[in-house]
């Protein structure tokens, strides 16, 4: 540290200017690389996607300006009908959103079940958690084999109880639910770990006091424990919503959108339109992405607003 403590008098004028403004300039120098990367790969592409969505483009040649034609076709404005594939995708997205939230109570339930101190409980907790660590591609494969009509374990179990065999992923009415169930498996594990860490921080004195007042079971959980788990619930909510709207890997691996396109969601449909054997319709794909972005934006604004309230409280 001795070198920097040397007297400023020997420094050149320019060095002196930097020294005088060091505290103002340093943060920007530290921010520069991250901001540069983030702008080039995230911020600017968002704007470009908006721009592309007003064009017809095959990804190689010239873009042709078509105004809002892509959106008109997608949403069925004017005398057109709404794009059927878009409609299916949108409703499936809603199903994902609603059903994916089941991961939160399920995770809480498992966390409460595991929140004991018996021998080997640490290992149990990690083993319960570890579906989350596995890649979604493998989760998808594992579940598609689990669901196999002939070889799958699910039908073996159903058969044991006398229920008929079902081909979940081959049935247009069931396939989406089958995929969501597969997605809930790692997501529940994630929520569980959030709640387990949250439960560690629950104030034991409050619990004791409530117990002396005769609170137990559901009442205790609802009025004493859950309020203290609020930070965990918030994060669980954020990651579950984001996860539900990002669902792509499982669909791509398990059904590739089928049967008869019944399992498409917006993220998958967008990919299909812009980069698949059906052709490179980048403009139309970008329009779908923009719609998805606006759905997500509602949630993002809510998350940021909550975080902002907290920041203000911290100051």
């Amino acid at each position, binding site marked *: 540290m001795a070198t920097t*403590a040397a007297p400023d008098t020997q420094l050149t004028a320019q060095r002196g200017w930097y020294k005088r403004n060091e505290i103002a300039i340093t943060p920007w120098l530290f921010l520069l690389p991250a901001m540069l990367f983030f702008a080039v*790969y995230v911020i600017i592409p968002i704007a470009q996607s908006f721009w592309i969505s007003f064009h017809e483009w095959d990804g190689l040649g010239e873009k042709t300006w078509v105004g809002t034609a892509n959106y008109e076709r997608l949403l069925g404005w004017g005398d057109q009908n709404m794009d059927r594939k878009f409609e299916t995708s949108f409703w499936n997205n809603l199903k994902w959103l609603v059903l994916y939230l089941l991961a939160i109570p399920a995770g809480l339930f498992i966390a409460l079940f595991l929140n004991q101190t*018996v021998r080997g409980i640490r290992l149990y907790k990690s083993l319960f958690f570890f579906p989350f660590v596995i*890649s979604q591609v493998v989760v998808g494969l594992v579940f598609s084999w*689990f669901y196999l009509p002939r070889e799958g374990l699910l039908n073996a179990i159903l058969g044991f109880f006398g229920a008929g065999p079902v081909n979940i992923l081959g049935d247009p009415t069931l396939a989406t639910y089958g995929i969501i169930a597969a997605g809930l498996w790692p997501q529940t594990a994630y929520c569980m770990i959030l709640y387990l860490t949250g439960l560690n921080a629950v104030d034991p004195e409050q619990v004791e006091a409530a117990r002396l007042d005769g609170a137990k079971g559901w009442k205790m959980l609802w009025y004493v424990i859950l309020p203290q788990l609020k930070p*965990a619930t918030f994060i669980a909510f954020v990651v579950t919503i984001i996860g539900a709207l*990002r669902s792509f890997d499982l669909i791509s691996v398990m059904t590739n959108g089928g049967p008869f396109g019944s399992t498409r969601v917006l993220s998958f449909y967008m990919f299909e339109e812009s980069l698949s054997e059906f052709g490179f319709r980048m403009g139309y794909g970008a329009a779908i992405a923009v719609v998805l972005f606006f759905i997500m934006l509602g949630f993002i604004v809510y998350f940021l607003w909550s975080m902002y309230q907290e920041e203000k409280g911290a100051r």
Partner: protein
Amino acid sequence: MFPTPLEKRPRSAQITYQAFLPLALIIWLLPLIAVANFSIKPEADFVNGNYWGIPSSFEAFSNYGKVFFESNMPRYLWNSLLITVPTVIGAVALSCMAGFALGVYKFKGNLLIFFIFIAGNFVPFQILMVPVRDLTVSLNLYDTKLGLVLFHVAFQTGFCTLFMRNFIRALPFPLIEAARVEGVSEWRIFVFVVLPLMKPALAALAVLIFTFIWNDYFWAIVLTQGPDAQPVTAGITEFNSQFRAAYHLMSAGSIVAALPPVIMFFLMQKHFIAGLTLGAVK
């Protein structure tokens, strides 16, 4: 503690719990156990209809041997490693610096920049897909590991910066002030005062990003094709078409593809969980 600790419950409840615990675990991991069981079966079992029973002979060595010696799997695994490790280093380095700037200094736009990083991190991938692919193609980086690494570094920086900034905020600020009074220059404060205190955050982020990137599938199929650059998550589909309907080999391949993050998790569990809870839940 909630629910009531077992020690305070009757003996019968304790025994029921102890017995139910392994059972619940087996039910929870059933799909995975079935696949693990698939992967050590001989092919004959599938022909004979012995799908989920006990394997008629133990074929783990020959099945996993095929994965490693008769397919492109080792190449894909190697690619995954060459994509994941540089991304971890890059994203952690960039976000350390950004987190330091946002966590320590008060300046106009601080909170705005911080919130842009968070917001960008929540965005759906699809809105980035077309422009990022276009950019990668025009940089001549399509179907290269570097193209994938650059994007991953940029995108993960959002999440990492959120994490780092909050971690640095929680550090004792007087330490930094004391160093300033001593006349220590700002970048030296970063290197010698802040960085050593950030070791737990660095470890947490490193394992977390490792898992995220290793498990990425979407960008792998958007920005690469073929065994030259594709990571194992994308490669597994090629592997599966090579061994179509050979469930014993496909499941062995999937287990191999899934294993590295699992090992990472069990080795660095404490850090991993600290990272997942975003440091917000302690």
